[in-house]
């Protein structure tokens, strides 16, 4: 330490060598007073060394960087997928997935604390002395060695000179002391000595902040985990099923940060504390009930505010408090703070109708699923002729506001439009493969017609590809699926194909029963191909079977035949709806046919065994709260205040010292001789200017003497 100070001072070249030795003496005296012995001395000088401090800054910095690059506290599976099992194990054992509460990071912080504390311990006596003392024991020789140093001779007596100078110094904001030894007057003045305390404030602040933050952290839980008293739960359980080893009683834990998601109308008395890939259940000394959750949106659909009406009921006293919690406006209850953190689905109930989409089982009767209800977030097994599927309802959104692509084209076009509610769900087959879907509950208008939109994708990284199902006259899906069902019913299709074949041959004027049968077979087959794979499949079939030179001719006639039978099927569907198909087909019904055929043509790309329609829903929201207890918070803030004060003192209060030694002139004269010198410590430039000002002032009064 003494070396450091010396090198500093030497570099500054500002303070006389005598002064350094003075300071060194002080430090030496301090050391011998404390009777530091060999090992302790080495330890102290290591812990208090600047090298250690800088190294810690750098190491903590690097560790922190790793923690920002490697996302912390993710699900362990995510890491395994990302790094492979080997590196996962390596990283896990180094606690890289939860760096900031790992033992080695806390150890680093401990070192930082110890090092800072050592510095404070060793330097405080010197600092206090520097702050308080005036240093009257200085020789004129050492004054002359200082950077800023000058001499004057004066006509007036030493006493008067001293008085004059002390007044000026006090005008300049200096405090001063004087000493008179055998007629030689020494004045020592200082200003901004409180600067020295900045060191104690900043370094003390670091200790206060780190200790309080450590107290608020979850290190105690880690210790108990090591001791085998606690074990984070990693399974997806109901809170009530979580075993005792993963539970904490209400008063068992002095500090925590936990989460609770409370559906509207429900009550909870516990929170979940996340610990690495698991969680602990923390009981609270009170129950929280959510009476109402409200969310407001901007025109763009972005959330504007969310707030929860809660009632807190103390478990012991039964005392109740009602309050509304908003983002940025937490509720403080006793030592606890309850924050509005997020919102979620609280178990909305979907009233679902599944329409079969399978086209592969032509001969079996199309399967039928009774309408059912399912809660968002839950899973359900659905049996189809193609096998068993698991339906997982992932997310329900009550509204979907999107930028309006037509904005700005007409006077009344709004910038945003609301697509209405949507349901996101996954259909997982028996091998575990899943497709994700998003269905909009309300049909949306496209060029004056209405379509039901459903998006599909295989991975979350892809964009959704949308299927547009035309809405019928009743704005429903019924006609589309009736058409589809009829097309898949081979008995009915045989009848229709024969009827159509007969009719079309009749109009061509050649009724021949063999030809009719042949044509009916072709028709039914084409319709089946179309049902399974749209026009593409029909084309593929032709390409496979027909030599190239005849393809165009064949495909032309096949498509004509296909159109004919599809038209007949459509008319039968309309007839089934009670439409008078001889006289009264509306233009809308005609257009519907085109949309229908277009959609049918691509429906095979929509890889789902059924189409899921949400007929109605019961919306229920849940409010996500963060509940914390951090007894160290106020101490952290106190540390922060100390830190700020310390920084201001250290950088913005200039510590300056001025010394004046006044000796009486030779006996026969009445005047005196004075040496003035000073130093500005870390603010030499400012001090040099101040010294210049002082010199100018003294020049007016006295005469310069070299």
């Amino acid at each position, binding site marked *: 330490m003494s070396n*450091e100070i010396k*090198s*500093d001072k*030497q*570099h500054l070249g500002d303070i006389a060598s005598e002064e350094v030795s003075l300071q060194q003496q002080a430090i030496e005296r301090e050391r011998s007073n404390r009777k530091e012995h060999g090992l302790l001395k080495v330890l102290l000088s290591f812990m208090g060394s*600047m090298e250690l401090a*800088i190294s810690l*800054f*750098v190491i*903590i*910095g690097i560790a*922190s*960087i790793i*923690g*920002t*690059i490697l*996302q*912390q506290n993710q699900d362990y599976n995510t890491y395994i997928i990302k790094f492979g099992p080997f590196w996962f194990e390596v990283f896990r054992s180094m606690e890289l997935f939860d760096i*900031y509460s790992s033992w080695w990071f806390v150890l680093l912080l401990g070192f930082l604390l110890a090092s800072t504390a050592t510095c404070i311990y060793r330097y405080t006596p010197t600092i206090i002395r520097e702050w308080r003392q005036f240093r009257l024991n200085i020789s004129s020789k050492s004054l002359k060695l200082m950077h800023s140093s000058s001499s004057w001779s004066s006509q007036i007596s030493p006493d008067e000179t001293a008085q004059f100078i002390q007044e*000026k*110094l006090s*005008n*300049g*904001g200096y405090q001063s002391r004087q000493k008179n030894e055998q007629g030689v007057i020494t004045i020592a003045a200082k200003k901004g000595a409180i600067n020295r305390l900045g060191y104690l404030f900043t370094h003390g602040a670091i200790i206060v902040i780190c200790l309080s*933050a450590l107290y608020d952290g979850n290190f105690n839980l880690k210790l108990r985990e090591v001791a085998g008293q606690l074990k984070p739960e990693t399974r997806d359980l109901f809170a009530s099923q979580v075993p005792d080893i993963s539970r904490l009683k209400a008063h068992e834990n002095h500090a925590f940060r936990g989460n609770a998601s409370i559906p509207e109308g429900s009550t909870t008395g516990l929170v979940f504390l996340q610990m690495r890939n698991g969680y602990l259940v923390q009981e609270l000394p009170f129950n929280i009930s959510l009476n109402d959750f409200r969310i407001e949106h*901007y*025109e763009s659909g*972005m*959330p*504007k*505010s*969310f707030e929860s009406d809660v009632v807190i009921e103390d478990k012991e006293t039964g005392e109740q408090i009602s309050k509304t919690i*908003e*983002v*940025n406006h*937490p509720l403080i209850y006793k030592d606890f703070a309850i*924050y509005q*953190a997020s919102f979620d689905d609280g178990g909305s109930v979907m009233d679902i109708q599944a329409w079969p989409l399978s086209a592969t089982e032509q001969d079996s009767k199309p399967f039928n699923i009774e309408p059912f209800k399912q809660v968002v977030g839950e899973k359900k097994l659905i049996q189809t002729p193609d096998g068993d599927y698991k339906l997982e309802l992932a997310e329900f959104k009550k509204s979907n506001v999107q930028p309006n692509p037509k904005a700005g084209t007409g006077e009344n076009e709004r910038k945003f439009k609301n697509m209405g509610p949507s349901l996101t769900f996954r259909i997982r087959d028996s091998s575990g493969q899943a497709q994700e879907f998003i269905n909009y509950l309300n049909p949306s208008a496209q060029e004056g017609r209405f379509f039901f939109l459903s998006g599909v994708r295989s991975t979350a990284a892809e964009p959704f590809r949308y299927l547009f199902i035309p809405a019928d006259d009743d704005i429903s899906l019924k006609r589309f699926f009736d058409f589809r069902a009829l097309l898949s019913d081979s008995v009915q299709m045989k009848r229709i194909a024969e009827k159509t074949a007969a009719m079309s041959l009749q109009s061509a004027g050649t009724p021949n029963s063999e030809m009719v049968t042949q044509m009916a077979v072709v028709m039914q087959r084409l319709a089946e191909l179309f049902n399974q794979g749209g026009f593409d499949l029909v084309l593929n079939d032709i390409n496979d079977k027909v030599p190239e030179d005849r393809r165009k001719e064949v495909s032309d006639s096949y498509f004509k035949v296909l159109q004919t039978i599809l038209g007949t099927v459509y008319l039968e569907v309309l007839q089934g709806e009670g439409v008078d198909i001889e006289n009264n087909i509306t233009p809308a019904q005609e257009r519907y046919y085109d949309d229908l055929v277009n959609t049918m043509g691509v429906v095979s790309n929509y890889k789902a065994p059924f189409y899921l329609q949400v007929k109605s829903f019961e919306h229920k929201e849940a409010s996500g709260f*963060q509940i*914390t207890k*951090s007894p160290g*918070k106020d101490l*952290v*803030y106190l540390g*922060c205040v100390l*830190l*700020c004060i310390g*920084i*201001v003192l250290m*950088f*913005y209060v200039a510590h300056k010292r001025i010394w004046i030694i006044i000796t009486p002139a030779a006996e026969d004269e009445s005047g005196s001789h004075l040496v003035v010198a000073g130093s500005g410590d*870390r603010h030499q*430039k400012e001090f040099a*200017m*101040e010294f*210049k*000002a*002082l010199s*100018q*002032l003294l020049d007016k009064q006295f005469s310069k003497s070299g």
Partner: protein
Amino acid sequence: MSMTGQEMENIFEKQNLWRKLSLFDWGWAGLLMMSTAYAWQQYSVFMDTYEAGILIATTLSIIAWGWLWKPVRAYSLYVAVISLFAIYLYGNDLALGETNFFLKFLISSKSAIMWMSALYVLATVAYFIGLFIGSEFSSKTASAMTWSATVMGLVGLLVRWRESYLIHFDVGHIPVSNLYEVFILFSIITALLYLYYEGKSKTYNMGGFVLLVISSAVAFLLWYGFGSRGASEIQPLVPALQSYWMKIHVPANFVGYGAFALAAMLGVAYLIKDTMVNRGSNGAIINRFPDLEILDDVMYKAIALGFAFFTLATILGAMWAAEAWGGYWSWDPKETWALIVWLNYAAWLHLRLTKGWRGRPLAWWSVIGLFVTLFAFIGVNMFLSGLHSYGEL
């Protein structure tokens, strides 16, 4: 602000602190207080206690700032007059921004920012011309352009503040909420810090270097704000950002960033000069560079200032986090990078103050420090996710 020997002499004479203030100083303070009173009378119903506190503290700080650094008085008057004129022209109709001549071409937020951008780039060029050919005229023009750019930048921000309220009352908010807005803030704060030291040290020759970093910010701003992202559109605030804390936390941070950027550019100038001098080159250009000692000293002052503000900003951020996210420290990437930046400059200051390091190594360190700072500033938004995920690239 430069103190002449004459002013300094007063330090040791009996004097009254207040007497140093001129009539203009008092008039200016009075004007500010009157404007504040007017703002209070008009808008106090919309303010909570904290916001009222911020209003008053802002007024007092601007008064003190103007007393300590005189050019601030004229600067704030220009900004106020132009901004008020723009607000007056707007009235209650945002659409006037497209039709009114003054707004469309001069002082709507977007136009003002365009003027700011152009002026900063021109000033950079002019500073360098001044440095290379030794033209005092060019340097002074550059300085004037930097001042004007800084006026236009602040006008742009203030008018944008008003514009956000004209979109809809609910949308209105102080324009420090996304990368586009804070880049403007960064540019003007860095420029103001530079202009302070320019006035104080009476040398124009650092200007080109400092303006280089501002010009880079401007380039980013134009690409980001007016490119395909349309980030210059005013967006409403997500609930977490709707807080008075934003008004103090963000500006404090940018004083820090601006000061660190300034220090880094002085570090560049230092390294160039030092290298050339060591090689024995003694050209006119190198001689026109400021003294190494001045560069070193201003670099230290800038880092000390930046460190003070950055510490304050981090603390304010922690307090805000304690109110919005449920914890004063969550090791969110932005927070963590703020700590890294802080540790970096703490190390820098320790080396200078206790080890007596000076010159080259610290100049290098402050240049590297700029990259650390830049990462905390934009890299985090670009590459990492977290609670600060607004303003993503």
